[in-house]
């Protein structure tokens, strides 16, 4: 609910392949819009200043900090979030399954941002090596896992996709 004095903008975009439309004021971030207007709470907010990476989503194929992008900027865009990686009633994607197999998830709060970052990384650099993988993940902070299982899962997924 927002005060009537602030202008409401209609934001229409494609999220995980489905067209969605909702209203928000100009100051809503894309992350908040996805979470609270569209009910897609899989994208998480860890810092709201663009460092931790938990809010990372794909906008027109590129990884973006959902906390730093305004919802109105995503009008007309194609957005992918964690909820789009597998159908609700379908099996996990190879990447998600690699995470489960390698115990790359502990609390899971950073996981959505890491998965979406990896979707882009694996798409751009399918034959990435471990050092490059760690660099590619340098914009995602995890406090639980110590990263090793995440890196191993990502490398396994890269191999599976090759």
């Amino acid at each position, binding site marked *: *609910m927002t005060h009537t004095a602030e202008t409401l903008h209609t934001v229409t975009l494609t999220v995980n392949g489905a067209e969605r439309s909702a209203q928000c004021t100009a100051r809503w971030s894309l992350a908040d819009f996805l979470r609270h207007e569209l009910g897609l*709470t899989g994208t*998480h907010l860890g810092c709201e200043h663009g460092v931790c990476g938990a809010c990372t989503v794909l906008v027109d194929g590129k990884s973006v900090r959902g906390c730093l992008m305004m919802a109105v900027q995503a009008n007309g865009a194609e957005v992918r979030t964690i909820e789009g990686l597998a159908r609700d009633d379908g099996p996990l994607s190879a990447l998600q399954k690699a995470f489960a197999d390698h115990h790359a998830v502990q*609390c*899971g709060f*950073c*996981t959505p941002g890491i998965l979406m970052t990896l979707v882009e990384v694996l798409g751009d650099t399918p034959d990435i090596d471990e*050092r490059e993988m760690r*660099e590619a993940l340098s914009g995602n*902070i995890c406090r639980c896992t110590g990263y090793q299982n995440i890196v191993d899962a990502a490398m396994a997924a890269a191999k599976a996709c090759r």
Partner: protein
Amino acid sequence: MTANREIAVGQEVIGQSVPRLEDAALLRGKARFLDDLHAPGQLHAAFLRSPVAHAHLRSVDTSVSRAMPGVRAVLTLSDLRPSLTADRIPLQFRNNGLPEAITPFVLANTELLFVGEAIAIVVADSRAEAEDAVDAITLDLEDLPPVADVRDGLATTAPRACLDRANTYRDFELSYGDADSAFGDAPCTFQLSIKQHRGAAHPIEGRGILAVPDPLQDRLKVWSSTQLSHEARYFLSLMLGLDETQIDVAVPDVGGGFGAKYLVYPEEIAVAAAARQLGQPVKWVEDRREHFLSAIQERDQYWTIEVAADTDGRLLAIRGQMIHDAGAYIPQGINLAYNAATALPGPYVLPAYQLSVTVAATNKVPTIPVRGAGYPEGTFAMERALDGIAERLKLDRAEVRRRNLIPGDKMPYKTPMVSRSGAAIVYDSGDFPAIFAQALEAVDYPGFEARRTAAAAKGRRLGLGVGCGIKGTGRGPYESATVRVGRSGQVTVHTGAMPMGQGVKTVLAQVCAEQLGLAATDIKVICGDTTTVPVGLGGFASRQTVVAGSSVFRAASDVRQQILVAAAALLETDIDQITLNGGFVACPGTNCRFSLRDVAEIAAGSPGYALPPGVWPGLEATVNHIPEGLTYGMGAHAVEVEIDTDTGLVTLLRYVVVNDCGRAINPKLVIGQLHGAVVHGIGNALFEFMGFDAQAQPTTTTFADYLLPTAPEIPRIEAIIAEYPTPTNPLGVKGVGESGCLPVAAVIMSAIEQAAGLRYGQLCSIPLAPPDLIAALDAARG
């Protein structure tokens, strides 16, 4: 109580790295964390926080803020008082010999004591509107001098951090043996001045609470991202003047805790009180800046110790002082300082020890345990002492440790110390020299000199550090578990244990499943819901696998027996003829079998018919296991580093950790805990510094300023599980959530010293940043 492994016929679940029950929802983005919850009609809270570290709060003008769009209420302490029984939160751990009036206020009273202290709560239709209104509140403050450094606060001329009380909260001394006489004729003595700074917890999900009042029944439902739901219910009932039965606390998925959520915060009480006053749900989700300002952290400890050793490098005594920065209030107790002091002897033979500890105030946010809980600090002091001995006696650093480690045949080893409760600290099991040897072998300690010289020939400066630590785990006094087979045959575990990412539901499901001949995925585990389990303590101190695990084991064993008795009636045979496997009771050699549902039907009874002999109503057991003391898991670590003498950069090349977990219920999860804890230790060693200026203003309030380790900084970690089952619980398990933190900073410093050609034991201030290493190199050259 001896370790008792009852293995269900044909099914061994304990010891398997079964996939986590938690993962599917988390991976699909379908988990529900606090901010994902939505109560119809919910309002949002934001807090006005003190902009200064110390001031008289003369007045708060909320008139403009109250009139702003979307604002429903702007409340200060005096506005909340009608809903509160007290101004201050009760002390979490009682009996600490602490003065009165040291716990935080629900909202600031007349004197502001730290930057970030909550002064007013704004409740509005949206968080954005609440924050707008926060900015419109004006304060009339009269600045007071702040205590920014805990040592300065101890001077007789120092200003008071809080005008009503002296800066020293408590002095205490730990001592055993005759340290002074040991120093009298010790051949090797030296002093170390150690500064240890550990930062904040920083779970990626911050704190949050959703309070949903039910005015019709005068009840309150609270969802909280917390590590202690039963305590939260109790504190809420105390502070709001309600009976515990009027409050329910439930926990959503929790995105990490690390100690920051092991406290009932003023903000939570304020939100709950505001919700009751307004008669509407109120949600508060902290942002990262609030976590930097007002979530608990660890901070500074200053150790000045003298070390005495014989000519073989064996410890004779350690004595000294430690000053601990507790911050502006004490919400919990002196446990952090006490743990650090008792942790110093570690897994070593220390004949005499004397440490005077001063727990004192600063005008900074309160400090309570973060993952490791004071044990890293005590461990660092001891490990630096051992390296100091190696330096002065020109002994190999690993050899010094070998000579001082408690021998394997001395278990159980009663140390001369006592825990906070007064019980003796007894190391129950483990072979410390063997664990240490395992780490040395894994890192190829003997081969390092060749690696080092080969690298040096190429201009690379390598170093290797080794060290040990030991953590008491499984802290009591109890944890709760109810195991129930419902009438549908569904098995449920209700427990006061609390999840925050470690996979506790999976582990408890495994323990239960093995007793009942099921798979872990057959078990539903519900944690921390006060509506389903009446008592509980929660997640802290590496305790849940030990204590909740034991409760579940014993309750599930009891239920197993009940199932067999009821099955005997169904199958019309003797109990010892019956197998329980895959959800069925059966009599081998016959076609007869019944499902758990059938068995539950028998135990549910039917009017007009007696229950079969020996069968009790329902298939359920509740056990609140009381552990006998702590169980100790020792760890040995080794790290190889490379330094750049031009930039001071330290690169970690590889890391080895061997840790005794007693018995691994789920080996993959144990390894995961070791990885995470080691990386937390790396953060404390090299990166995490929570800065304050001379006015006690926080200067690092974003992740750009406060550095958490990221993937490129972390080397491959070779984590090796050692298993020395403890006789002190039926599973033989030891906790492992924090152990991996303990000697990390020390082994890294030792490795850097070797790489840099510095004296061992010299680097005694952590975290060590590149300029600090450059300064040490310059000083050594000059």
